[in-house]
């Protein structure tokens, strides 16, 4: 019976060649090559990123201060590492390096400044923190330094000679360091070691993206790095904007890597890898 079945199966190898299909496919391949590969998908993705980024940059300007009843100051926000002549603090903790102050001494200080400082001529010192006081739903902008403080709105300088002033300055100048960003390279190295070992163990050959895809990934990665560099060295950035960039980067990376993969196991491993890295990036931004 087996021999008979073998012979019967062999006969299925004679499926007649369909010349129409053959020439149709050949022509389509040639036509496609002449036309060149359309870049519209990549362009649409990049344009989408740019539009979302623009949207997020425009919207935070209108964010309203938090409201509480029974006190004149509703909230105080600080941005550590200010510079004279530049004001970076924002009235929302959704910005990187911007913290909501919860210290009652600082609140009492700003309730009535005149008790602790006096109007005078002078200059800010080298150590500056930007402060936003939300009073009666209006924002007041201050820069506080070791020598005195500046009301940015009126341009009035106040000399800080009291003990309370020194305490308030110390509280506002203190920065909580969160070196979470260093977790990212560790996670990237860890997941890559894991995937390499997995591929070796299962005798799989990982995919290598084409040159074209690499350039696109490098471009998007540079955009992401620029956003982080801005947030680290220049000024606060809106966290949802950074998260959008990070997730879009993950999505683009995943989309192009997955397209080149021809093995299901590699697809699974690569998807898990990209998900872990994106989730880490997401957490880092939240904690930034």
């Amino acid at each position, binding site marked *: 019976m087996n021999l008979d079945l073998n012979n*019967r199966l062999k006969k299925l190898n004679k499926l007649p060649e369909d010349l129409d299909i053959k020439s149709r496919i050949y022509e389509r391949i040639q036509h496609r090559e002449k036309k060149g590969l359309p870049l519209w998908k990549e362009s649409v993705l990049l344009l989408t990123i740019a539009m979302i980024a623009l949207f997020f940059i425009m919207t935070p300007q209108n964010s309203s201060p938090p409201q509480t009843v029974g006190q004149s100051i509703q909230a105080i926000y600080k941005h550590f590492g200010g510079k004279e002549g530049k004001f970076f603090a924002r009235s929302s903790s959704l910005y990187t390096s911007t913290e909501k102050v919860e210290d009652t001494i600082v609140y009492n200080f700003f309730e009535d400044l005149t008790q602790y400082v006096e109007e005078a001529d002078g200059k800010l010192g080298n150590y500056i923190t930007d402060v936003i006081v939300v009073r009666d739903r209006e924002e007041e902008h201050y820069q506080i330094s070791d020598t005195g403080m500046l009301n940015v709105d009126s341009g009035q300088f106040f000399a800080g000679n009291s003990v309370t002033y020194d305490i308030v300055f110390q509280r506002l100048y203190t920065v909580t360091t969160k070196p979470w960003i260093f977790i990212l390279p560790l996670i990237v190295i860890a997941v890559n070691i894991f995937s390499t070992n997995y591929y070796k163990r299962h005798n799989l050959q990982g995919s290598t993206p084409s040159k074209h895809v690499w350039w696109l990934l490098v471009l998007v990665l540079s955009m992401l790095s620029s956003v982080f560099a801005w947030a680290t060295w220049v000024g606060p950035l809106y966290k949802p904007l950074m998260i959008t960039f990070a997730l879009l980067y993950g999505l683009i990376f995943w989309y192009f890597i997955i397209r080149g993969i021809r093995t299901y196991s590699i697809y699974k491993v690569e998807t898990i890898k990209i998900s872990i890295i994106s989730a880490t990036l997401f957490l880092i931004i939240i904690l930034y």
Partner: protein
Amino acid sequence: MEFDELYEQYFQRIYQFIYYMVSDPNLAEDLTQETFIRVYKGHFRNEAAIGTYIRRIARNLVYDTYRKKALIKWLPFQKEHEKRETQYVPHNWIMQSEDRRLLYEAIQILKPEYREVLIYRKIEELSLAETSEILGWSTVKIANTQRNAMKALEKVLGGDEFGFKQSTEETQ
């Protein structure tokens, strides 16, 4: 080897393999086209025989289709062949012979791993080594799968005497 030569040499084998795996002439055409586009654009580095390389692409595209249909229907920018639902349309040549039809339909009932091993080993009569290179499996695994596939096929065909033939006729 030039693309035209490759196309001439491998078109029929690739199309036949894909057709037997997906049983849909339109999908088979799309996947064959995609296979040769990848061959056209690809950088073959002599890591394997060119035939093995092309067959691997075709095989992976078939599995991609199975997987994408099952798992990631929400994938953005799907290609046309990924969106399309599979339609079971046996080839005229297969329908012309009762024996071919029964055998073909029995193969379609088998799971994909059995089907592809039967296609490579019994229909195309590739060697164990060639099949091993295409599938990335050990020769022992291929021999075992082949044995199980043949048993499964015999079992399905054995159903002829007990109504398989009749039931397939009824479904048409």
